[in-house]
């Protein structure tokens, strides 16, 4: 299974990532997920989230998650980009691409990857609240 896991402080340019897509002729499904920073956090309005990461462990834990995905589903490739640092409301903080022969495994693997990420991958959110006048 081909894999690419990247952390970046720069905005995620989804159109560029999609343009770089490589899908072999046997594949029939590409699933995309984009996580967007919402305006509401803890019942208050925010203007951004500052993402903190234990980077070496993030990459290692994602590797372990992808190892398990490779065991469970016939996935050709996974690409993932996670922002770190300040991400504004309405910007993408996470981008995932899963390529597989059929749609079921693409949907399932993508969901599972994100569920596992939310349990194990050491990234934390520090909301930057909108100032109340």
């Amino acid at each position: 299974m081909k894999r690419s896991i990247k952390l970046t402080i720069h905005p995620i340019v989804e159109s560029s990532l999609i343009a770089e897509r490589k899908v072999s002729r046997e594949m029939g499904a590409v699933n995309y997920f984009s996580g967007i920073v919402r305006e509401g956090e803890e019942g208050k309005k925010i203007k951004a989230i500052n993402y903190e990461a234990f980077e070496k462990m993030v990459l290692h834990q994602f590797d372990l998650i992808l190892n398990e995905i490779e065991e469970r589903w016939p996935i050709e490739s996974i690409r993932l980009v996670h922002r770190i640092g300040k991400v504004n409301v309405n910007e993408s903080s996470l981008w995932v691409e899963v390529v597989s022969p059929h749609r079921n495994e693409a949907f399932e693997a993508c969901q599972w990857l994100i569920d596992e990420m939310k349990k194990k991958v050491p990234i934390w959110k520090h909301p930057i609240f909108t100032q109340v006048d």
Partner: protein
Amino acid sequence: MEQTPIDIKVNFFSYFKDLTECESTVLQLPQGTNLDQALSIIRQQYPKMERMERSTLAAVDLEYVANDHVLKAGEEISLFPPVQGG
């Protein structure tokens, strides 16, 4: 023969840095100390970490390990609250 203590670096992430007022520290521990014992020592040294006991995740180097994991010289413990990726 007395065994030399081992040095274990402890890293704090997220608001644990605020609670402990540091990003990392080095503990001198007897050989054979396991993770659970090290966490006890850390909570004694940093009393504000006591109330976080139930919501503390601990990693040794880059892995989650069992509490009975015996620490080896050069290993690092990282402590952090529940993760929030995505």
